[in-house]
């Protein structure tokens, strides 16, 4: 519509968001092949809908919304069929084990894989991507309060799964975990 916008064409910016879209998709599908199919579908859908994108608003949030809707409408059912109860797929999350503190990271991935779709999603959006609760609520089509409590519950569950409950502060400061957190290597 408005061709006078000083913003970059979102079509040119799309490629810059692909790595994040792939990461989000991998977190949702927990399977790298499926994740890339999902990203492809979302990109095609986004491309056909760029006239609906409001310049100046958050393009990544918009793309994530499309990706997420595509996942829930097309992929979630499909994934159930290939769900593996042994959690073998969880291993695919850490294709490249970090040389530093990989043990802790593997634990983290394994714990993360046990969360529900909604919990993983909200942790990626709020925890990893740093979207606000309000943005995440809009993207997920639910109330801000729902996002807040879901995020808290997801963090809590993750902490439990990693045996990092809040009475056990020591566990959080152990060398491997700190290495993961700070990105330094364990001597």
């Amino acid at each position, binding site marked *: 519509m*408005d061709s006078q916008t000083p913003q970059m064409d979102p079509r040119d910016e799309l490629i810059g968001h692909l790595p994040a879209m792939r990461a989000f998709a991998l977190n949702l599908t927990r399977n790298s092949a499926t994740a890339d199919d999902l990203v*492809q579908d979302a*990109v*095609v859908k986004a491309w056909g809908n760029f006239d609906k994108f409001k310049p100046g608003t958050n393009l990544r949030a918009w793309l994530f919304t499309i990706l997420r809707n595509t996942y829930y409408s097309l992929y979630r059912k499909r994934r159930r069929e290939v769900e593996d109860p042994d959690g073998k797929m969880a291993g695919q999350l850490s294709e490249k084990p970090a040389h530093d503190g990989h043990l802790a990271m593997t634990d983290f991935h394994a714990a993360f894989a046990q969360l529900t779709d909604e919990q993983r999603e909200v942790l990626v959006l709020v925890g*990893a991507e740093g979207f606000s609760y309000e943005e995440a609520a809009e993207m997920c089509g639910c109330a801000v309060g729902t996002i807040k409590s879901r995020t808290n519950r997801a963090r809590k569950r993750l*902490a439990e799964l990693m045996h990092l409950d809040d009475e056990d502060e020591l566990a959080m400061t152990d060398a491997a*975990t700190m290495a*993961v957190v700070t990105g330094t290597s364990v001597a």
Partner: protein
Amino acid sequence: MEKNRRTKKLTQTIDENLRRAYADTAKEPVPDRFIKLLEQLREQSGEKQKPSGDES
């Protein structure tokens, strides 16, 4: 309050782990299939697109 402080610290630890796990994936180079896909989409829409408003 003590509990709050601990919860806050725990939240930070979890989010830092999250960001790191996520960053590992997001660091991977974009596979060719997406570069090709974008080229295709661009060609298709190029045929029916009005000139872009971005002239320098």
